[in-house]
């Protein structure tokens, strides 16, 4: 029921154009504030992941299809884009680099037609299992046919080989900034297109099939057909994301169709919140932050991502988007003041527990992976001797205190929270629009 409550609040209905305009402006202006090479890399990958995660959510959130093999479509799209890029470089294909994602999208969609025909005959768990199987199959095939997939090393290309954009000689997509803008344009276009799709007969019927496939059959819809069409469209957008990957990295390998990628996009969509259109956008940003930015600082980034994911699923199963909207709703009803103190308590104790966790993880990683560098590691700039019991005891103590205090404050918070939610629900019930 918690999930049902959330969706009744939709502040995004006003000024859709304002929101899209603002989004586009944000994409355009970001490099002015984050112009460093690393920031550009990060933002480029976020843009790609946004498209990928949104395409995934066309299945998970909108059609109720849990896929474990979505990277098949983005990955195959990327391979086709890369081959096209090499043809362009060789002069045997006359096609602008900027439109490569379209080729990738069509390739993705084509495989959506073929594989989707098999997978979407079933829904629910059988669907999930078949996608897992197809994912493994394509991954295995990618290593079996080195001619097309390039074997272990993958295939590489040169994105600057094509004719410059609009005939302007400096627009060759050599600089990362130009690639960023190319990604930004595709990303905004795809976001708008995928959002528009949610407001079409097919998009709405997909929701109906998600909620109750049997009922959908009895109002005249072939649910297999609905799922198939949604999967084809979804793999088209996934293919576009793959094409952008090919341009961004100039290399595509078996890793692009792997289960790791498929799992990643599932994680991103879930972290952001599959019940909302914009959820996966948040999820993609957070996911790329973990996998690209955090991995610069620590080898344990995957562990942190895992812990973050588990925590989120436990305490906010609706994802970041639901968390955000629930709080906005509390604010709208002017009840946020009552949550302020509980929030401070919960956040401070959560931070303490997180600090303890980070210390433990980093110490352990140092002992198991970096033994060659001696027993002393630096945590937050403070040297710590992993050979001595001191840091370990401290870490465990901080974690324990934080976790216990967190549990105490969390209960208090949960009480306050549900009280407020019930008040709001009652008000809504008594004042139907």
């Amino acid at each position, binding site marked *: 029921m918690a999930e*049902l409550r959330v*969706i009744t609040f939709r502040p995004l209905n006003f000024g859709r154009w304002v929101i899209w305009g603002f989004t586009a402006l944000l994409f355009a202006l970001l490099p002015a504030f984050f112009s460093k090479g690393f920031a550009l890399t990060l933002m480029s990958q976020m843009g790609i992941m946004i498209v990928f995660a949104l395409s995934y959510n066309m299945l998970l959130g909108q059609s109720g299809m849990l896929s474990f093999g979505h990277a098949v479509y983005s990955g195959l799209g990327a391979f086709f884009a890369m081959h096209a890029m090499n043809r362009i470089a060789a002069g045997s294909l006359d096609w602008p680099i900027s439109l490569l994602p379209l080729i990738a999208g069509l390739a993705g969609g084509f495989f959506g037609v073929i594989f989707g025909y098999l997978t979407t005959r079933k829904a629910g768990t059988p669907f999930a299992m078949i996608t897992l199987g197809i994912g493994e199959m394509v991954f295995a095939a990618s290593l079996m046919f080195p001619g097309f997939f390039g074997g272990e090393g993958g295939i590489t290309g040169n994105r600057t080989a094509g004719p410059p954009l609009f005939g302007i000689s400096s627009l060759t997509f050599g600089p990362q900034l130009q690639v960023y803008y190319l990604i930004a344009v595709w990303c905004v276009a795809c976001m708008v297109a995928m959002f528009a799709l949610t407001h*079409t*007969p*097919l998009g*709405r019927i997909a929701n109906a099939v998600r909620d109750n496939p049997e*009922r959908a059959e009895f*109002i005249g*819809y072939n649910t297999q057909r609905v799922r198939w069409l949604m999967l084809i469209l979804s793999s088209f957008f996934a293919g576009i994301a793959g094409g952008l990957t090919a341009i961004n990295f100039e290399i595509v390998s078996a890793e692009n169709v792997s289960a790791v990628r498929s799992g990643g996009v599932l994680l991103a969509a879930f972290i952001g919140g599959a019940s909302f259109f914009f959820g996966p956008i948040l999820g993609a940003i957070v996911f790329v932050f973990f996998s690209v930015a955090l991995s610069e600082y620590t080898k344990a980034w995957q562990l942190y991502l895992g812990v973050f994911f588990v925590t989120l699923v436990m305490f906010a199963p609706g994802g970041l988007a639901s968390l955000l909207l629930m709080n906005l709703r509390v604010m709208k009803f002017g009840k946020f003041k009552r949550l302020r103190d509980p929030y401070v308590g919960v956040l401070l104790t959560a931070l303490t527990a997180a600090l303890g966790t980070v210390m433990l993880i980093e110490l352990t990683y140092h002992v198991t992976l970096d033994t060659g560098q001696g027993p002393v590691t630096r945590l937050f700039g403070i040297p710590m001797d992993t050979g001595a019991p001191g840091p370990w005891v401290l870490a465990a103590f901080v974690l324990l205190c934080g976790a216990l205090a967190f549990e105490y404050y969390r209960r208090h918070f949960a009480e306050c929270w549900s009280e407020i939610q019930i008040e709001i629900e009652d008000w809504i019930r008594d004042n*139907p629009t």
Partner: protein
Amino acid sequence: MNALELTGVCKSFGRTEVIRGIDLAIPSGERHAIIGPNGAGKSTLFNLISGRFDVSSGTIRLNGQPITNRKPFEINRLGLARSFQITNIFHRLSVFENLRCAVLWSLGHRYAFWKNLNKLKDAEDRAEELLHRVGLRRRRDTLAGLLTYAEQRALEIGITIAGGASVILLDEPTAGMSRAESRRAVDMIRDVTQGRTLVMVEHDMGVVFGLADRISVVVYGQLIASGTPAEIRANAAVKEAYLGQHAEAT
């Protein structure tokens, strides 16, 4: 012409025979009630007609066309719609969206992903009209999952009639309702099935005798009587098998 025609319809689950050779013809425009004790096979019969289950033998015709063992969505497109004994709606969509989804196919919008739903005036108007007819106007933007039970039943009927089907199957439309709710539901059903063929399974004899032009009695998967309410009331076999005990209970 007959709206529905069942000839020798049988259904077995494994070795259990649930429906044992039913012949039934329901003329167009009739309001027909199917009654019988629990477990007699009434709901199974509905599931066979609407394509949810395949028949073991026999044929079913809808407006003269054979629909035996066709898929539910095909049967629906040929003009038959049904409701369910256990409420079967789209819980996470608003009441309005539930009804709009239900009108899309019949208005020819099908699987369109190039049309803006909010600009489809025909679908919107039809959904609004349905909202009004099933009395859920004030709940237009409420999520269907949050409606009261009686409201969900009304929505279910709204979804069922939305596509303009000529034959409507209602499976215990007033089950679990209070007397007042039930009375309102009967008025609503009478109104929305005007000019269509109605077949319903119902336990409440007040509802059955108030609505039905003809009644069929199913016992142990067989049709033991079919006739006007007066004929059924006077039928000795029916009295013995079903009505007697039931009349005492109510």
